[in-house]
């Protein structure tokens, strides 16, 4: 054994210095640094986590559904849970850089295929499945909890244009995305719709594209262009529509009133009122209003606030209200009608050549009205539409009007009125009655009687004449008629086909044509041999 042991060779000694530090430790240090870096990096690149509440989670799949911003994937839905109120809470983690766009006023919505009157959108999600999109907000503060929108908001982000604010009491069929029309061209859309905190009305935000923003001046008026406007008033039936999309989807329109040329474009976020239709939007373009009170004796049935006030057919104002009051001194009830007259409209229509002052003062206007009244201008109630019985107030000049003056110191100066309409008709009837009274009816009837008696005798003479005719003339006439008939009969037989007259006539005609032919031969011969007239026919030619 020891021999064999001796056979085992000895190891060769070597020289190497032992490193003071085991190099192998570099590996876990590198791993630690690497792991630490990954941890720090992932912690740094971790964006915010947001929670969005939706009515339902259709198409949302935790871990799969993607959050997109401007069509870039920026996160995924991590889980879906329920809120206490039963809505669905969708939690999503976003990437670090996209997280910066999530502000307090960001909006989240689910993008899925959508077909509406305005078009088809989200077709790509047919294959990829729904995703959650959001819009960047403008708020300074970052947001974490959001209420998801059921309908995608209009895409105005990054689009040039201006936003304006509208106030209305009735949103009608307007919704976010409804078109804003300018001369029936889509110029923008409704971007937000919100009930005022006190519940008194609605505030709308509309976005107008930069191409049209110059037309939105401080003077423009916005109105509901939704659906079809049927107006039935003193002026008759009117139907007004906007574009088909607006009819179906609702929309609003704006336009500058006619007298506002040259107005400066409105700055962003200018507030406007939203009128219910075009006519009401356009009927208030006059800012100077003078109120008058009128008293009518007729029934006010058929009069409504907003009814027109015409001056000889020109619209210059509208009825603002009416009611009744008790006049204690006279002990009677009176029925005042309040009207608003657009004095600047009066001014516009007042053409007085060189006498017209450039800028009219209130005194000038009063003077005009005074002159009109002095000239006999009176207010009358008239029926504008016979079918509907709508009344309007007509200012017109009445002949022989009782003189009146306007007391300008009253809060509502009283405009003198005159009876019109039915009472005028009654007056006319009265006139006719007096004229009838004045007629010499008895004399007329005496004359009439005499005339009738002579007419009677004349008629009697006529009847005797008729008797004579009957007895004497009629038999003679009958005999004459029968002899005429016989004459006609013989004439018929004479002219008939087989009558001798006919055959004689035919023979005669035949002979006549024969002699005519001979005559033609003769004339031919004479044409060729004119000398034969003198010499006679040469014998050899035969």
């Amino acid at each position, binding site marked *: 054994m020891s021999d064999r*042991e001796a056979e*085992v*060779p*000895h*190891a*060769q*000694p*070597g*020289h*190497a210095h*032992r490193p003071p530090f*085991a190099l*192998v*430790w570099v*590996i*876990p240090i*590198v*791993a*630690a640094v*690497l*792991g630490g870096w*990954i*941890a720090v990096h*992932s912690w740094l690149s971790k964006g915010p986590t947001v929670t969005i509440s939706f009515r339902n989670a259709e198409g949302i799949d935790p871990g*799969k559904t*993607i959050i997109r911003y401007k069509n870039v*994937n920026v996160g995924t839905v991590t889980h879906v849970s329920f809120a206490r109120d039963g809505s669905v809470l969708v939690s999503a983690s976003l990437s670090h850089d996209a997280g910066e766009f999530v502000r307090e006023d960001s909006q989240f919505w689910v993008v899925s295929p959508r077909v509406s009157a305005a078009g088809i959108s989200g077709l790509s999600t047919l*294959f*990829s*499945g729904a995703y959650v999109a959001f819009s960047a907000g403008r708020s300074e503060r970052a947001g974490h909890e959001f209420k998801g929108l059921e309908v995608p908001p209009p895409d105005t982000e990054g689009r040039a244009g201006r936003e304006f604010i509208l106030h209305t009491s009735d949103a009608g069929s307007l919704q976010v995305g409804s078109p804003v029309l300018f001369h029936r061209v889509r110029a923008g859309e409704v971007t937000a719709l919100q009930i005022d905190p006190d519940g008194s009305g609605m505030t709308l935000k509309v976005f107008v594209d930069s191409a049209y923003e110059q037309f939105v001046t401080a003077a423009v008026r916005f109105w509901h262009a939704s659906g079809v406007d049927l107006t039935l008033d003193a002026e008759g039936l009117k139907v007004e529509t906007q574009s088909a999309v607006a009819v179906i989807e609702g929309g609003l329109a704006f336009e500058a009133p006619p007298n506002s040329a040259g107005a400066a474009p409105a700055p962003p976020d200018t507030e406007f009122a939203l009128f219910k239709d075009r006519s009401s939007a356009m009927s208030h373009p006059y800012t100077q209003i003078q109120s008058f009170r009128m008293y009518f004796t007729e029934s006010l049935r058929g009069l409504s606030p907003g009814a027109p006030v015409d001056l000889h057919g020109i619209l210059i104002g509208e009825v603002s209200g009416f009611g009744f009051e008790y006049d204690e001194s006279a002990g009677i009830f009176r029925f005042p009608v309040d009207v608003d007259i657009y004095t600047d409209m009066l001014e516009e229509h007042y053409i007085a050549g060189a006498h017209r002052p450039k800028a009219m003062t209130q005194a000038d206007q009063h003077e005009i009205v005074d002159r009109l009244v002095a000239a006999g201008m009176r207010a009358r109630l008239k029926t504008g539409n016979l079918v509907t019985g709508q009344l309007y107030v007509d200012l017109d000049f009445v002949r022989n009007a009782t003189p009146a003056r306007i007391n300008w110191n009253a809060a509502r100066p009283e405009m003198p009125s005159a009876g019109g309409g039915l009472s005028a008709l009654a007056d006319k009837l009265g006139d006719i009655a007096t004229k009838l009274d004045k007629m010499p009816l008895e004399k007329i009837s005496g004359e009439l009687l005499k005339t009738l008696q002579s007419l009677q005798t004349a008629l009697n003479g006529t009847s005797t004449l008729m008797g004579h005719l009957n007895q004497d003339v009629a038999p003679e006439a009958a005999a004459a008629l029968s002899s005429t008939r016989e004459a006609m009969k013989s004439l018929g037989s004479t002219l008939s086909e087989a009558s001798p007259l006919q055959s004689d006539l035919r023979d005669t005609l035949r002979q006549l044509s024969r002699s005519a032919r001979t005559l033609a031969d003769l004339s031919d011969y004479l044409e060729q041999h004119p000398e034969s007239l003198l010499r006679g026919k040469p014998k050899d030619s035969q």
Partner: protein
Amino acid sequence: MKQLHSAAQAGFLLCLSCGQLARSSGSLIQHCPRCGERISLRKPQSITRTTAYLIAAAILYVPANLLPIMHTSTLVGGEDDTILSGVIVLVQTGSWPLALLVFFASIMVPMLKLIALALLVISIRQRWKSPPVGRLRLYRLVEFVGRWSLLDIYVLTLLVALVQLQALATVEPRPGAVAFGAVVVLTLLSARSFDPRLLFDQPGEIP
């Protein structure tokens, strides 16, 4: 005759590369008389190296499991998959056997390896008195099963190479795969650095 526990006690060294037995010359650094490879009584710095590799592997085990190992993008969108989410997908699609295989090979095995190696290192450091044969078996198991953990990397490599249908479907590796590969390699290195003979050494036997 004195009962010898090991060759080391008799002053013999074994060359681990050519198998030559040599008599220790007593110097600090020795070389194999046949192949010239450096030889020693036990693997040099075995416990230190094993521990170092083990710590590195344990650190990387975290990102290996948390980071996505691959990204699948198809027509209907893209998706990042970690090892665990891959297993979940397999379970959801009903591929139970495959799910179990991936789960064991990619999650359980690396973890058990880490635990087993840590146990072995601790047992030597703490000079456990328990019979070393059981621990030796554990070591053999670790060494044998270790390579199978590369199954995931292998599958991923195949997928990345094969599924390149551009717009239709693409599979791309993600950093998790690197971490995972590193974990497997580091545990292999760690197991390799471990000298099982240490399990049998009595205190004070090895000079």
